[in-house]
């Protein structure tokens, strides 16, 4: 068995050293009837080739995003990742290291975390960022809990244009507190009324930027109002590339910014693993969930990095910790920071421009399609269209033509007939002009 180095002779010698006769003598503490006599009912070990064959069968029954004109976004985006990223994250020194609890032999991971935290703080326009959360949605749940700790208030106002699955995650995260959630209805193409929902008891307002339907809203006034009454503004960004084109949430007055970092450095992976971004203002540092990397010096005065402020965390504070998180998104964080370093300011801005230009171009082309109306006035690389037919049916019809046209909103809101014909279309740099022509002509066909 290729992963198990002990030989039969080794095992015999070792049992002898230990002073027992058989391996099961080491399992004496297991209740007799619970120790299995036989193997469990599963296949026996396989060669590499056999395993590969099995996985080829799984893979063949999926349609990968790079194989067809592909327009699905809604919280996960099909971007191109430079080859250097994957080579680096597969270096054994990064891939097979544990959490950097022994800083003297973990400076590689720690310095990349410090650089990552700096990049995230810069992108979001905040003072500090943590070393990552599981993903954007769980980061969003943690933000609601953190706002509660900071403000000691108990009312959470959630925009109806927050990603619907993020809304569900927040609901679940605060379920066993006595917090109350005020949730708006989704409004695709009108201005959402949030201010009237806010009062003195509000701990935070959670908005998405650009929102789930692709709209770009300025939340500066909302932030100002919230600050007057000591409530927090939580801004969620699920497409982090957008921050290369639009004002940072920090500039609008956000107090906590959470995001999904998948777009940078990380593949689609059918939804995970991704990387949750979490940034805030300096004054709230001690209320942050998750790990933080900080600068220090060694015994010789040389600069180095360590995990710090761990008295917030579960392994020290136990039931009083700011979060129960332990393992986070380590390697996805590394992929993010390497890709962001390869881009740099110049590359990120250009990437954002290409994404936006593509979306603008497709939106223009779609104007020629009868039975389709673009609902957004503003957008980055994603917008919502209303069709003259059920959007889920249209998407299925286009699958037959080898086009994956977008996300029918009904998949998120199956019980809302008003949204049944709405389709969210995303355009990244991976979408070619040819792809756009195919989409437009297929839509013309199916909507006529």
């Amino acid at each position, binding site marked *: 068995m290729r992963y198990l180095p002990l030989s039969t002779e080794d095992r015999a010698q070792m049992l002898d050293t230990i002073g027992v006769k058989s391996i099961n003598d080491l399992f004496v503490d297991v209740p007799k009837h619970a120790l299995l006599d036989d193997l469990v009912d599963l296949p026996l070990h396989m060669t590499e080739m056999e395993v590969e064959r099995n996985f080829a069968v799984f893979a063949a029954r999926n349609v990968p995003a790079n194989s067809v004109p592909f327009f699905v976004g809604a919280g996960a985006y099909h971007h191109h990742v430079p080859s250097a990223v994957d080579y680096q994250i597969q270096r054994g020194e990064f891939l097979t290291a544990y959490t950097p609890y022994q800083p003297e032999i973990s400076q590689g991971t720690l310095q990349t975390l410090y650089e990552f935290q700096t990049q995230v703080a810069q992108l979001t326009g905040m003072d500090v960022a943590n070393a990552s959360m599981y993903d954007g949605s769980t980061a969003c749940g943690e933000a609601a809990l953190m706002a509660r700790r900071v403000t000691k208030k108990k009312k959470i106002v959630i925009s109806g244009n927050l990603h619907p699955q993020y809304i569900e995650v927040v609901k679940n995260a605060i379920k066993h507190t006595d917090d109350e959630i005020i949730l708006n209805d989704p409004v695709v193409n009108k201005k959402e009324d949030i201010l009237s929902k806010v009062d003195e008891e509000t701990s935070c307002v959670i908005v998405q930027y650009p929102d789930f339907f692709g709209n770009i809203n300025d939340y500066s006034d909302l932030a100002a109002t919230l600050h007057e009454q000591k409530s927090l503004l939580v801004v969620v960004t699920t497409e982090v590339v957008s921050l290369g084109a639009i004002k940072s949430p920090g500039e609008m007055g956000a107090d906590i910014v959470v995001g999904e970092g998948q777009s940078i450095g990380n593949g689609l992976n059918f939804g995970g693993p991704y990387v949750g971004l979490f940034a805030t203002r300096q004054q709230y540092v001690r209320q942050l969930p998750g790990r933080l990397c900080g600068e220090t010096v060694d015994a010789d005065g040389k600069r180095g990095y360590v995990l710090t402020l761990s008295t917030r965390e579960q392994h020290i504070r136990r039931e009083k910790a700011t979060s129960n998180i332990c393992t986070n998104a380590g390697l996805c964080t590394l992929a993010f920071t390497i890709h962001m370093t390869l881009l740099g*300011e110049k590359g990120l801005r250009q990437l954002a421009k290409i994404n*936006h230009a593509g979306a603008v171009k497709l939106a223009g082309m779609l104007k020629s399609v009868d039975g389709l109306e673009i609902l957004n006035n503003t957008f980055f690389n994603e917008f919502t269209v209303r069709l003259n037919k059920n959007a889920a049916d249209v998407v299925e019809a286009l699958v037959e033509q080898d086009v994956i046209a977008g996300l029918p909103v009904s998949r998120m809101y199956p019980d809302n007939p008003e949204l049944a014909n709405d389709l969210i279309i995303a355009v990244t*740099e991976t979408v070619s002009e040819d792809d756009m022509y195919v989409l437009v002509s297929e839509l013309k066909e199916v909507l006529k």
Partner: protein
Amino acid sequence: MMNNQGRPTGVENTDTSNQKYESFTGSRGLSQVEGLIYEIGDTNRTGVDLPEVDDFENCLGGMERDQEIGLAGLTEPEAMRHYTRLSRKNYAIDLGLYPLGSCTMKHNPRLNEKMARLPGLGNIHPLQPVSTVQGALDLIDTLAHWLKTLTGMPAVAMSPKAGAHGELCGLMAIRAALEAKGDARSIVLAPESAHGTNPATAALCGYKVKPIPATKDGRVDLEAMKEALGPDVAAIMVTNPNTCGLFEREIIEIAEAVHAVGGYFYCDGANFNAIVGKVRPGDLGVDAMHINLHKTFSTPHGGGGPGAGPVVLSEALAPFAPLPYVIAGEESFELVEHEVKGGQSFGRMTAFHGQMGMFIRALAYMMSHGADGLAKVAEDSVLNANYVLASLKDVMSASYKGPCMHEALFDDRFLKDTGVSTLDFAKAMIDEGYHPMTMYFPLVVHGAMLIEPTESESKQSVDQFIGMMRHLVEKAKAGEKERFTGAPHNAPLKRLDETAAARKPVLRWTPPGADEEAAE
């Protein structure tokens, strides 16, 4: 140059080693110093070529980002060098035995990485039509089948993102089940030796945590536990094998006692590696248990994640499992993303469907080993740990008598009067080319040293480790205190000042001169 904390902001002129010749660069041979991307790169540099775009009218609604972000870029050769140099400052499984108890740092097969990168598995979107991801749903269902079979449990929730997230899932299911009976209860019992995530998770579910003491032989004190039980106890959280590396002999009595008062048994499955393929938690009365795929099933730890923490559930808890879940229909797989009519799911823990990338790797690992190999995994991990225990217990102080499971616990009694602490001893291991074991955990013994060699180590490798440990013990007892208190001497850095880091946290790079603004 010094920053606002009086620390050097660069890597220049920091060669203070005692070597005969000073180094101009600070580097010494293959031990190279490396600055931050912000010191090497700048905002004009980039490592990607992107096409130009013709002018167009934007749709950003006047929200253009006009201030500089400040992101430093590097060209590809600079970036490759930066990260390669940094990687060499990390210890890793690929470099040596990694005896971190409770972390299961076993070999990470590269086949699993290759499978996760097949375009048909790695490049699919969580929200593309279900008809175009049938293979992915099949894979999730297949992994679920393996997990259920290995644990002897009827159901599994696949979406939790890591062990602690799995704990949360399990306790939320328990709370939902109790609430469905109109009896939420308010207390969760957890042994003193529990991982910190256990009490932190219970608190997130609105429960008060009542600690249960350990017996002298390192197990849950059944009598004390029975006394703590009552109609207000929702659950007991027990790690089994426990964090002292021991199997809870009275596990069935524990389960029966908590069931007798209408509570549930949550098992922390962090140490499942010791019993996989040999013992099924379902036969022990467990109601919920998370499985760290990044421990038992070898998905890489990646410097702190990502993990995955599927939770197996008993019949009683299965109806309360979170969304989404996969159903195998007659002709195709269905993905249930919304609560069905009359359903009792407690809700959604994360966007999308869980850590697919980790599912692929874990399933490849399981298939490679098979039913026979997985049982061998448990046996060899237990054998290696007991071999370490047997080979060190005459010079170190083993905390408990009898065989251990996959990790061996020692405490610091053997260091008495040496002036060497567990921390010092650990740092001296670094000088010998090893990552230290888990230190000061579990909390139930003084100066704990928890050693988990895993099944991936050959006998030669374990023998060398044992020899190294015996050597260090000898030196500590011989009064070579400096060797330990000054350690590590040979790592990229000397011992780091963690107190200073926490007192005045510097959590990001700031441009020289901007320090004062950014200071707290």
